[in-house]
């Protein structure tokens, strides 16, 4: 059974008098445990697609069914709750909060989930250990290397044990060697049973996924 379904999803932006169609009639479904790469050139709408899949954005028309719930019916507060508990985002630019320790950055989703301090710290430390970042626990983002920052960001995405992990060009700001390490992490996560969706424009990165969805000008052109 799919955990996420998109039915006839369209997304259009009104820029001045011009209507810009970013996504056209997208249909796809994600099953538990899948590793999907969404591939396409820049401007193809893949990031918008990812945002819609992660309930960070809503479609202009069409339906998004997240765990049997029609997302278009939900309030902003409910969407925030889904993002908090069911979705883990990883961004190209890491997006760690500056002047905040690695530990505190990882704790963040748990604060919004309402987990008490002690439990939060324990969980965050466990995840840090899992990613070999225990030594970096009290370091600030500007004291970490790019790879380390991205690992902290992945740890933050994982800490709530989300249903789906969405990574938008996670290797885009990293050198190729570090990029491979990060991709390896996603592969391992998938092996451990996590559902991973990877957005990229690089073919060799996409090939690490089990399934590739190619998108061009807002339309799915190939579904491998």
């Amino acid at each position, binding site marked *: 059974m799919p955990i996420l379904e998109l039915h006839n999803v369209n997304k259009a932006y009104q820029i001045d008098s011009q209507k810009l169609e970013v996504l056209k009639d997208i249909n796809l479904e994600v099953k538990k445990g899948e590793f999907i790469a969404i591939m396409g050139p820049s401007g193809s709408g893949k990031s918008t697609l990812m945002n819609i899949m992660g309930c*960070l*954005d809503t479609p202009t028309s069409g339906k998004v069914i997240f765990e049997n719930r029609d997302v278009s019916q939900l309030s902003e507060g409910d969407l*925030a709750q889904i*993002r*908090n508990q069911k979705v883990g985002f990883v961004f190209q630019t890491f*997006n760690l909060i500056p002047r905040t320790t690695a530990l505190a950055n990882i704790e963040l989703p748990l*604060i919004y989930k309402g987990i008490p301090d002690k439990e939060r710290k324990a969980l965050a430390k466990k995840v840090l250990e899992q990613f070999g970042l225990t030594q970096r626990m009290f370091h600030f983002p500007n004291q970490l290397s790019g790879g380390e920052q991205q690992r902290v960001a992945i740890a933050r995405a994982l800490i709530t044990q989300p249903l789906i992990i969405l990574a938008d060009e996670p290797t885009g700001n990293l050198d190729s060697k570090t990029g491979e390490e990060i991709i390896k992490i996603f592969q391992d996560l998938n092996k451990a049973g996590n559902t991973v969706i990877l957005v990229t424009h690089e073919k060799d990165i996409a090939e690490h996924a089990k399934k590739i969805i190619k998108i061009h000008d807002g339309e799915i052109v190939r579904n491998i």
Partner: protein
Amino acid sequence: MMEKLLETFKLALITLRANKLRSLLTMLGIIIGVSSVILLISIGSGLKSYITGQLQDLGSNSLYVIPGNLELQTGGSSSGGTPGAGTAILKFTLAHYRELTQKGTTFAAVMGYSENNGTVSYGGKSKTMQVAGVGYQYPEVRNQYPLLGSFFNASQQEAGKKVIVLGKTVADNLFGNENPLGKKVTLSDNKFTVLGVLEKKGAFGAVDMDNQVFIPFTTAMTTFDVDKVQSFWIEGKETVPIEETKAEVKKILLRTLKKDDFSVLDTGSLISVITQVLGVLTIALAGIAAISLIVGGIGIMNIMLVSVTERTKEIGLRKAVGATPKIIMVQFLIESMVLSVTGGIVGIILGAAGSLAMRGFLPTTVSFWSVFLAFSVSVIIGVVFGVLPAGRAAKLNPIQALRYE
């Protein structure tokens, strides 16, 4: 929810501490506003209790007859004429004094009264002080008797003799251990014979009541070259209600003077008028000080808006990991409230310290009421001026916020 609130509060503290100087400068407006409001209100109440205390000290049977129409109606509206207008024009003559003395049936004592500044010298030392022209009944009326020698008597007053009674401070300053009785002091180029030294009345606030000298009001007229009596100080009989005494004073004076020429004040109405005037003054001054609170509030709003813009990306990220618009709103509201409330508390402490430092001059008090007011105003400022920036943060679109550079 409590857990989230607590975390949000901690977060606000961390953020504000990360920008110490900025936070301090932002709070400064509130600190200055609150401390000056507290200080001004406490000075106002200090002045009030100082003046009230002094007037009460004069007794409730005293009437003051002053020139000019000074309508003193407790709570009532004044009926025409600018209060105090014409006070500078002296209206009373010695004839009025005689009439009051001879015709009055309800008066225990009638005194002419004047206040002038004069320099009194003796043996090379000279001091400038208040020279009170009073009646011979002054010691009984004021309940302050000579420590040495005697006060002047009725006939000395009648004749306008150049006699002087010294306050204790004056006697100490000019004579030291020397016995001043019978000595001649100089006042406005005239030689005065010292008749006596009055017992200590003590300082009231910063004013030393013993740093003045007393001469007959008739003598004061010639010494300071005026042909009019400044004012009258009438002591009513204990058994007669003060209103009756007041009515009689008016009746006698109206034979030769017009209604607008003079006013008869009693201690009670004097206190109520001064209290009223001081009350209005205090509120006006505190109101002006409160303007700086608004300015401070605008400062907070300004810096919160900057903070929201600076942290656009952070806000986007927080939303992406599950912060609801409400919690973002609360986060920024708490920040602005921490700024304004901390500023308020520091302001209260500074204002109270300032008021305490004024104690040497005035019996200032910091009322619970003014502290409560200042505190609630700073809370309100935090909310009012925080809502706009916080609302802006809460409304940010997470995707655009994440892309913000």
